[in-house]
């Protein structure tokens, strides 16, 4: 099977903000192959999490709504499926872990029961089998005494431990895709490394694909094979990790990479991208990045660029580097 595991085509997810409908994810197109780790990076508020929730069809409605597009998972469009069919996929074939492990677990249910619940739901296990399986899973995510932990409640666990529990829960049914929405953002750095290590190991041993959503380029460099950069609801660049870090194409990606502090720049002022991201709901014409871009020209203000191939598996959405614009009828400069 050569086809991608997940193909998102032209996804448009809108939210009602102050009475107006605003596209938070606007024409998102990407794919994830089987067993592949793909990073999705971008600033807070650029639509990363909404994209992730759209894949699961879990966008809170109201105020959110998926307006158009296709989400093809294993050759079937998830957006045409009923809620009942979707429930069979959620937690079973596609699972998800979230940013804040502190609030992601139910405070009044034991750890074991919460893990077992997924197994009971999808694998037809009974409570006892589920609890046994929970122990095995907890061991897998590196929890030292799983036997005593299954009967513990979340408040007795540290943030790192809770995120391990979340991972154990997410991999319990051997999903084909795990969506990790900023899984390490709320954790301190040493714990971050451990969590990433566990995710990497599980991904390898189980052959599952991961969509890793983060705003931390370091994490992407560490575990992703391919990375997509999102800006104001659009994917602006997509490339294999090594290529993106060595040779970023989009001015926004360049700006992000130059903002990462490195040992050579000790003592210098940290670089930033001037300006701020557009507020959701601002009317945008042309390239969404043009107010902040150093290379803006006339066409950038008038016409929106599109993703075009610039190398193997590499795409960028920028007018730069195109001498003539077929179909647009404008010459550069």
């Amino acid at each position, binding site marked *: 099977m050569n086809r991608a595991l997940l193909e998102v085509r032209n996804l448009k997810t809108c939210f009602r903000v102050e009475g107006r409908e605003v596209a938070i994810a606007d024409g998102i197109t990407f794919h994830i192959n089987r067993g592949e780790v793909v990073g999705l990076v971008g600033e807070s508020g650029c639509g990363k999490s909404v994209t992730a929730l759209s894949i699961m069809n879990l966008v809170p409605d109201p105020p959110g709504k998926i307006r158009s597009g296709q989400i093809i998972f294993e050759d079937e469009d998830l957006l045409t499926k009923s809620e009942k069919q979707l429930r069979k996929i959620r937690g079973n074939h596609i699972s998800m872990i979230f940013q804040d492990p502190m609030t992601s677990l*139910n405070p009044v249910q034991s750890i074991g029961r919460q893990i077992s619940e997924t197994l009971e739901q999808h694998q037809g296990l009974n409570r006892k089998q589920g609890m046994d399986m929970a122990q095995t899973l907890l061991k897998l995510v590196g929890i030292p005494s799983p036997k005593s932990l299954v009967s513990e409640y979340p*408040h007795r666990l540290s943030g790192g431990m809770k995120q391990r529990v979340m991972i154990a829960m997410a991999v319990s049914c051997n999903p084909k895709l795990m969506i990790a929405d900023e899984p390490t953002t709320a954790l301190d750095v040493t714990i971050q490394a451990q969590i990433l290590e566990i995710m990497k190991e599980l991904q390898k041993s189980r052959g599952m694909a991961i969509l890793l959503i983060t705003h931390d380029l370091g994490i992407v460099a560490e575990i992703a094979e391919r990375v997509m950069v999102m800006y104001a609801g659009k994917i602006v660049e997509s490339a294999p990790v090594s290529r993106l870090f060595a040779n970023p194409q989009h001015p926004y990606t360049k700006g992000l990479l130059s903002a990462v502090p490195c040992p050579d720049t000790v003592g210098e002022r940290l670089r930033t991208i001037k300006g701020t991201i557009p507020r959701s709901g601002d009317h945008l014409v042309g390239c969404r990045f043009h107010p902040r871009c150093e290379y803006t020209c006339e066409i950038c203000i008038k016409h929106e660029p599109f993703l075009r191939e610039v190398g193997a598996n590499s795409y960028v959405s920028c007018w730069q580097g195109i001498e003539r614009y077929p179909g647009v009828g404008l010459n550069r400069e």
Partner: protein
Amino acid sequence: MLLTLARKLMGLIGMVLVMSLIAFCSVKLIPGDPIMTMLGGTHATQATIDRLRHLYGLDLPLWRQYLHYLNGFFHGDMGLSYFEIGQSVNEIIGSAFLTTLKLALLAFPFVLFGGIGLGIAAAHNKDRWADAAVSTLTVLVSSVPQIAIGSVLILVLGLKLHWLPVAGFDTVSEAVLPVFLTALWPAASLAKLCRACMLEELGKGYILTARAKGLSNLQVLFKHAFPNTLVPLSTSAGLIFGHLLEGSFISETLFNLPGLGRVSINAIGQRDYPVILATVLLATLIYGMMSFIVDMGYALFDSRLGVSDE
């Protein structure tokens, strides 16, 4: 665990002692002389008055009256009524409490299931018609006085349509109106609380986790969100039950039921000190017990509030 239990029980006894003193003092502060009230407008001789005063222990200094009363209370004897001559307070309170208890026990399930059911339904359908209906209903019930609702019910269902009897409390059809009226306000307030608690829980992260697991709406509501609301809901339900056990003057008067509410209000009007004191202490005991039970319940609902001896 046992230590905490013992400590809470000690607290309960302390509370009863303090309340007995407060109640005793405030009763003594009510203007008017019980003996004169008892004798009504008759022209009794001073000797009769003195004899009665002595009989009821009212000629003793206040502190001895209090100790005498307390002694009686701990032996389960609340003394004699000043008004119902010859009747003991135990008899009066006992029979009134039975009526009230019956009403409370009948109304409480409706309060619990009605209030919680409506609250969950409203929260689940936030900003849709079901939510609007429940909100309107709760506002209506809590803003219109009980006496007005009760009178309308009696008038329409009882006197005009003749569907239900308007007094008595012995048959099922007789019980419908009093139970409904008694349950109405507490159910509305519980529904409002339940809706707010459910909405708060439904916005939390673990709900999204539960949905991402592939659980159905009902599973998310009842297995995840609802158990997290049990602490505030049980607190409120406990107080509501305590309140029901005190009786309600209004519904008892409307339906002519000999319950605690009427007994206590009448006792105040008649300067019937022993009965007033007994109703106050009974209410204290009821509230104390309810909060004790609710406290014990917390540990069951939420392990974070577990009872520990530290």
